[in-house]
């Protein structure tokens, strides 16, 4: 399969601190790649870097971001603007906040095509239907405040996809939604990947969402990828202590009620507290002196998997 997006060794810094450090990942056409991690792990910044929408305080220190072979970081702003909406699109957590309250649904979606609505009305109606909006002919002239959160998210997906981009970046697209609506939106994203061949990068903190929709996953911790691989294998047998603890700390419908959940002691280090070694070393049950001193590289361990742990073999 051809790679739609290939990020190589991406490093981003804020005031000198490497908040994203040496991240590499790729997504193929029709594939859903999840980036999962806790707040501040760098997952959203990684996506923003792909869209070239980084906040001004963030600097790209190193690395390349190739969209179908072209390095986005080397393009001029005007060239990147040409890619947004046509080759790559992004959807966000708060659909109401991402839609212009004064634009109708139709006007908003037509903007993605850089066309006035009357010229592309039929196309917009088809797209609204494709993302599962009932009664598109009525909805197209409504404003965001007349729609529920789930419907706003469908509108945002419609405007992201109407330009037929190869790549969709979805940053916590269901976090603000109820579970029954979340299930509908995840189904829709899965269908779009399969039927349109859209490559999807899904950013989430929810391991359940990853298990539901992703083909592959990258687990991020404190700016680095801890572990990556196909979801089935990674969930069945994590090869990084952080992944294992994260999975064990989630309450499940199959747990013994009131049992003690696994806990990761301490907290995520702030950007100013990063040591020279593995950033998880201070909280890791497997830490040895080498972990504190030397950062483990993200090294392949077979079957499409890779882990950034010196001691992963202890977990086998």
């Amino acid at each position: 399969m051809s790679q739609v997006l290939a990020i190589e060794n991406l490093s981003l810094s804020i005031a000198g601190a490497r908040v994203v450090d040496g991240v590499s990942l790729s997504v193929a056409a029709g594939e859903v790649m999840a980036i999962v991690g806790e707040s501040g792990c760098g997952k959203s910044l990684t996506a923003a870097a792909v869209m070239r929408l980084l906040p001004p305080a963030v600097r790209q220190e190193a690395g390349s971001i190739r969209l179908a072979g072209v390095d986005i970081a080397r393009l001029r702003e005007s060239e990147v603007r040409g890619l947004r909406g046509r080759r790559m699109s992004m959807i966000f957590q708060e659909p109401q906040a991402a839609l212009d309250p004064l634009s109708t649904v139709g006007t908003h979606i037509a903007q993605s095509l850089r066309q006035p609505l009357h010229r592309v009305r039929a196309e917009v109606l088809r797209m609204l239907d494709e993302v599962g909006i009932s009664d598109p002919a009525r909805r197209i002239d409504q404003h965001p405040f007349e729609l529920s959160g789930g419907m706003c998210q469908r509108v945002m997906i419609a405007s992201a996809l109407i330009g037929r981009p190869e790549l969709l970046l979805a940053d916590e697209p269901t976090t603000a939604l109820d579970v029954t609506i979340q299930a509908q939106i995840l189904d829709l994203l899965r269908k779009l990947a399969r039927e349109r061949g859209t490559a999807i990068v899904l950013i989430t903190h929810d391991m359940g969402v990853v298990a539901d929709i992703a083909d592959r996953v990258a687990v991020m911790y404190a700016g680095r990828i801890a572990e990556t691989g196909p979801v089935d294998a990674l969930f069945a047998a994590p090869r990084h202590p952080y992944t294992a603890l994260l999975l064990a700390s989630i309450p499940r419908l199959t747990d013994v009620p009131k049992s003690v959940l696994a806990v990761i002691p301490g907290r995520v280090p702030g950007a100013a507290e990063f040591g020279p070694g593995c950033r998880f070393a201070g909280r890791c049950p497997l830490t040895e002196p080498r972990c504190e001193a030397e950062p483990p590289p993200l090294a392949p361990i077979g079957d499409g998997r890779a882990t950034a742990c010196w001691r992963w073999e202890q977990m086998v």
Partner: protein
Amino acid sequence: MNVLSLRDLRVHFPGAGNPVRAVDGVSFDIVAGETLGLVGESGCGKSTLANAVVGLVAPTGGSVLVRGEEIVGADRTQLRAMRAHVQMVFQDPVTSLNPRMRVGDAVGEPLLVRGIARGQDLRRRVGELLEEVGLRPEHAMRFPHQFSGGQRQRVVIARALALRPELLVCDEPVSALDVSVRAQILNLLVALQARLGMASLFVSHDLAVVRHVCDRVAVMYLGQLAELAPSHALYSTPRHPYTQALLSAVPEPDPVAQRSRARVMLTGEIPSPANPPPGCRFHTRCPIAQAICRSDIPVWREVGESQVACHFA
């Protein structure tokens, strides 16, 4: 003994047209030491119900008995006396704490204003409360911003425990926390319940979290209860189609199991609580709705170990 009894509780808010019927006839009891989970989607009225129980919103009808005493229509003195026995933990620990107040003062305030402890005695008890929630007595001198989100929620819990309430109302207490921190707070809440024997009303949208901490679970939809059952019964044999749909929509963090699960996919959106559908309120989204569901309100009845409001449960 019932720590809390709700009978036909109603909380309606005046709206532009029809009043919003946020809570529309809810009855249940919580006995001493029991944890009751209250689950539902946004707008179902679960938080309004929690606020009514602690006296933060005034019910428009029905009855709320706290340790047998009516709080609907109670005056300020009676409400103040009631609040010594009922304390609340909110979702966001950042906005729950005064940023200019040292956490020791925040935790000790309930004891001070009620004249229970002061001076040296107050400081000692604040230290004990902080230790009870996994913090250290010397943390009393710090300000909220010097703590992480999880630690701040510990402070909020310590403050709620200061008066040794018989009922702790928790409204989404772990929803704002990261996964690894959430586990720490859930472990703390379960341990505190066991140690102190207090009852809890645990409001959450997260069914896995509720199952983890609750003895019984009430499922709320559009201001009313759809189902109420012991935790094990609700999760193993959900009776109401809404409960079944909610459970099947929770993505399990296990890709293989997740792919093989039977799904009850709901279509459509939650109707407005200002204009709830006639008959069964769930019929507009229900996969098994019949003609009777559109016309007749289902009777609250017992099926097995569960109580359920469905014509076909």
